[in-house]
């Protein structure tokens, strides 16, 4: 089984930028992406802030070179996946076995919920075009077709850890010699379904979210997509430019505590971080930065913080939640944050946890408050935890 999997390309679109360069600029200038709801037709306009990608479906469609009447989730996916693949610039890609592993949480729900209004009144009504691509797999298929990938494709959906799972499944496809190259990550657009869902759980902050703050009140939903191009050692050697880093560790563990709530001691998070360290052969002291799951809900941050305390204490690496910029992009978050983790290594940056004021009573540490530059970052841990106790940690390591 081949040993290392290299990151050869990155692509991202989120509320803080439509590509890698724009996202990086916003991360550096501490520019958050939240604001009023402008795209969705919902009663929560002007009540709940969200982190929207700042382009209409027509604009996204033009960027993606796809029809504007398909799901926004697909459009977002196509843009970042294409950017990642272009960035990797792999010589003779056609001669290699290439896979696409993408994640999302609710498929084409943005279109389905439109369809459903008419359908509910009369089952013979509603435009079939709007429901045709409801399945999560449709987003992946449309983008794979657009990118010309057919050797291997699948879709992962494990709620908010979906794209972190997609990324390491992609790495394992390379290690098992199934493919040479894989584009992996995830996508989700804002929908009334998820907005209302999270709202019923009473975990949406009416202000901009404050992850890991004692006075945090919940999360802001966001949208976007993020992808990595993972390549085998053999392909990495042929690249025109040096790969960004390796994916050195990964683990998925289950909290097995509750369908939505995290266990008080963060068992799943602890096991995921521990497992990823074991896989990479690293010690806790080797980790130079943790990109936290850090949604901003009282329960999530408490569980993650407790798990970090148990695993890392008493020496805590710098850490921050970039959800303070992008909001919680659900099925896309692991992909977007994987891109940010890779960029942290490449650009020697540690991003601040925006709006942080007060350390949590229960924790002996706090996140980074200001941008740190010229950091010698060798290993970054990226956490993604989701409904169903699904906990995943990834570790990216400099070459």
């Amino acid at each position, binding site marked *: *089984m081949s040993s290392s999997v290299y990151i050869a390309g990155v692509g991202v679109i989120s509320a803080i930028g439509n590509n890698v360069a724009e996202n990086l600029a916003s991360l550096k200038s501490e520019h958050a992406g939240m604001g009023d709801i402008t795209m969705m037709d*919902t*009663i*929560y306009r002007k009540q709940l802030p969200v982190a929207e990608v700042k382009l209409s479906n027509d604009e996204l469609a033009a960027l993606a070179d796809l029809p504007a009447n398909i799901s926004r989730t697909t459009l977002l996916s196509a843009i970042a996946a294409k950017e990642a693949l272009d960035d990797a610039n792999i010589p003779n890609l056609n001669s290699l076995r290439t896979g696409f592993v993408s994640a999302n*949480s609710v*498929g084409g729900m943005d279109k*389905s*919920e439109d369809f*459903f*209004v008419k*359908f*509910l009144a009369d*089952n013979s009504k509603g435009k*079939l075009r709007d*429901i*045709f691509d*409801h*399945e*999560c*797999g*449709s987003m992946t*298929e449309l983008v*794979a077709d657009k990118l010309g990938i*057919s*050797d*291997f*494709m*699948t*879709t*992962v*959906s*494990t*709620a908010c850890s979906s794209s972190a*799972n997609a990324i390491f*499944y992609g790495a*394992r*496809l390379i*290690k*098992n010699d*199934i493919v040479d190259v894989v584009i992996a990550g995830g996508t989700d657009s804002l929908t*009334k*379904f998820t907005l*209302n*869902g999270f709202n*019923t*759980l009473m975990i949406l902050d009416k202000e901009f979210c404050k992850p890991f703050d004692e006075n945090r009140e919940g999360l802001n939903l966001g949208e976007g997509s993020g992808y990595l191009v993972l390549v085998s050692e053999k392909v990495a050697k042929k690249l025109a430019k040096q790969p960004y880093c390796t994916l050195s560790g990964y683990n*998925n*563990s*289950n909290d*097995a505590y*509750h*369908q*939505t709530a995290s266990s008080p001691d963060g068992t*799943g998070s602890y*096991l995921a971080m521990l497992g990823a360290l074991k896989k990479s052969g690293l010690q806790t002291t080797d980790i130079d930065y943790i990109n936290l799951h850090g949604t901003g809900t009282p329960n999530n941050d408490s569980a993650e913080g407790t798990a970090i305390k148990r695993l890392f204490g008493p020496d805590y690496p710098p850490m921050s939640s970039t959800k303070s910029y992008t909001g919680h992009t659900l099925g896309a978050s692991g992909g977007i944050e994987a891109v940010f983790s890779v960029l942290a290594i490449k650009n020697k940056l540690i991003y601040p946890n925006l709006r942080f004021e007060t350390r949590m009573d229960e924790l002996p540490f706090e996140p980074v408050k200001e941008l740190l530059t010229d950091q010698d970052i060798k290993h970054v841990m990226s956490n993604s935890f*989701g*409904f*169903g*106790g*699904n906990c995943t940690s990834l570790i990216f390591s400099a070459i």
Partner: protein
Amino acid sequence: MKVYIRSSACVSPQNTFNSVDFLTDIIESTGTRLKAIEPDYKEFIDPKQIRRMSHVIKMGIAAAKSCLTQADVEMPGAVITGTALGCIADTVTFLTRIVEQEEEMLPPTAFIQSTHNTVAAQIALMLKCHNYNNTFVHKGISFESALFDAVMLLNEQEADNILVGGVEEMVDASFAVLTRLGLYKRWPLSNLSLYNTPTNGTIGGEGAAFFLVSSEESSDNLAQLTGLKLLYKPTSIEEDIITFIKSHELSIEDIDLVITGKNGDTKNDEIYKSLSDSIFKNKPLANYKHLCGEYPTSSSFALWMASNIVKGGVIPEIAKEGKFELASPKKVLIYNHYQGKYHSLMLISAT
């Protein structure tokens, strides 16, 4: 590395769950939709929880638990599921309330249970299983993707005794939409005459089939999963099948039985018909979709059937295409495709 199926359990529109008979007591139903027969869930789930759980969660848990009991395994090394539409009942419930209650005063339960990984999560929760847990949601290869993950985990020696399953529920809303999309026949028919009049459309179905897979050889194993291949828009499936069989150091002559995904839809069945005149000529063939209906993870039903065929040495009469006698088939190929795009090959051998 060899992959063995230690045990399997299947909830389906037939008497497949915890049944001593192997597809002899057949349920005939008239319509265009087959509904799964509900097991007595009290045996597997706390009665207080049964009421709150949707059909797909209950079917999944019952099949998963039965699988573990049969293999006498308490804690699986991983839980992996495949489902195209996931918890569609809870999804529809929550969508309906959003519309009807105009986004106000919504109860959270349906949303909480609507995520695609709910079945795998509930299994983990019930078993207090902290191990690897994943869910694949890729249309007609959702189950195969999950199985593929299990095979990789075994190969990596990351886990053993992996619980892997395909789950799908059909609700009125999805049935109505899929009917409008032209998936099903336009008039009611008996599932047992599905293949008699080739016309457009098939019949819908649902079910949950779980497998406990391991790399440990044992005489108690149900079957060996010799090979698994997923293909997207293949240019020549005939060549791909030959290559697949060859890659396992076998030839088409070595295959005793082929189970195909024939579903009564003229267009869908064209490829099976053409193969039955070429590489599958004179080969004993079997069908399964008249028993469980068409659904994205129906290949898990086929794998359950194939595993039991090689274990028991008997092919259920109801599954046979035409009449033939075949004693103790040792090697069974399952070939299924979903709407012509996604094709999967599974090779099952007697242990």
